[in-house]
């Protein structure tokens, strides 16, 4: 029996990238849900392709990536999704890998799949080290053995969402979700994708990384 695959795309001020992301991902999924997270530009309008496959939901104010992902996942569950694939709205993720990623997920009976960026563009050195260090902390604190915890290209079985319910509404919600996978003992695997960097100055900074590190210590104590 084929599984219903729904792609969730959190997007904030992505008017220049979102159309292509939605067009490409809709070729590889049953539905695409874009969450315009309070963008000040034309992200919502650009994401509307006039296709029944594409749904654009709008946060009236910017809540953050974690909150946008949560809204998207709730919408996907409401649409009776079996597998939810999360991708970024900036076009960094190779969406043509979605079918292969899902196939590997099913073949290995994984409940969650995390992608690993390897090859392609070079990741900025600070991010490379930051990523390495955070992965190390996650491994020791949360028993989560991942090589690229920051990558937002993931596949999640819809039925495990209640187990990995994340609370943080900002970018750290995505990390919290990953850590919950480690803590709850779900079956997870990794899938290798090429690294693409469209803008080196966007995304998380070293300060975000330090803040996240402090949060991870707190989560270790309270979760």
């Amino acid at each position: 029996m084929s599984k219903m695959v729904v792609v969730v795309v959190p997007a904030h001020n992505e008017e220049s990238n979102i159309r292509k992301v939605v067009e490409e991902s809709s070729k590889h999924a049953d539905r695409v849900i874009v969450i315009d997270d309070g963008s000040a530009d034309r992200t919502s309008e650009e994401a509307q392709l006039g296709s029944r496959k594409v749904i654009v939901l709008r946060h009236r104010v910017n809540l953050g990536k974690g909150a946008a992902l949560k809204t998207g996942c709730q919408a996907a569950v409401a649409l009776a999704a079996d597998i939810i694939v999360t991708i970024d709205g900036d076009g960094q993720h190779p969406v043509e890998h979605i079918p292969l990623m899902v196939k590997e997920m099913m073949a290995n009976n994984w409940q969650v799949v995390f992608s690993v960026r390897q090859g392609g563009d070079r990741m900025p050195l600070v991010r490379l080290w930051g990523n390495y260090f955070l992965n190390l902390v996650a491994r020791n604190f949360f028993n989560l053995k991942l090589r690229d915890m920051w990558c937002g290209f993931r596949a999640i079985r819809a039925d495990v969402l209640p187990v990995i319910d994340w609370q943080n509404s900002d970018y750290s919600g995505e990390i919290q979700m990953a850590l919950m996978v480690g803590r709850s003992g779900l079956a997870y695997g990794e899938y290798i994708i090429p690294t693409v960097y469209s803008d080196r100055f966007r995304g998380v900074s070293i300060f975000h990384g330090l803040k996240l590190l402090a949060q991870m210590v707190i989560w270790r104590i309270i979760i």
Partner: protein
Amino acid sequence: MIGVQLLGMVVGLAAIHLTYLYYRRAQFTKRELYFWVILWVIFVFVSVFPKSIWPVVDYLGLSRPMDFIMIAAFIVLFALTFVNYVVNQRQGRKLEKLVREQALKDLDKR
């Protein structure tokens, strides 16, 4: 009266004026008005008559009124920080819930 006492009195009186102003603009309830006015009157009184808190200072085993004021200020600051954090978190959760519900309503329309 030394400068710092005068400053304390001016700040306290200005705060009472602002409190009354907020009440007249219906931004404070009558209860809030009484609470803040009483607090600021105590502040002005202690600024003008610092020796009035000696009994409290003696009772707590402190050596100077300034020690009492500093300790009280830190306690108030910590309490306010905690209250602000809790209120901020609560408001954030409410906002997130409201925004999400609005967004998901668009899904129901389809």
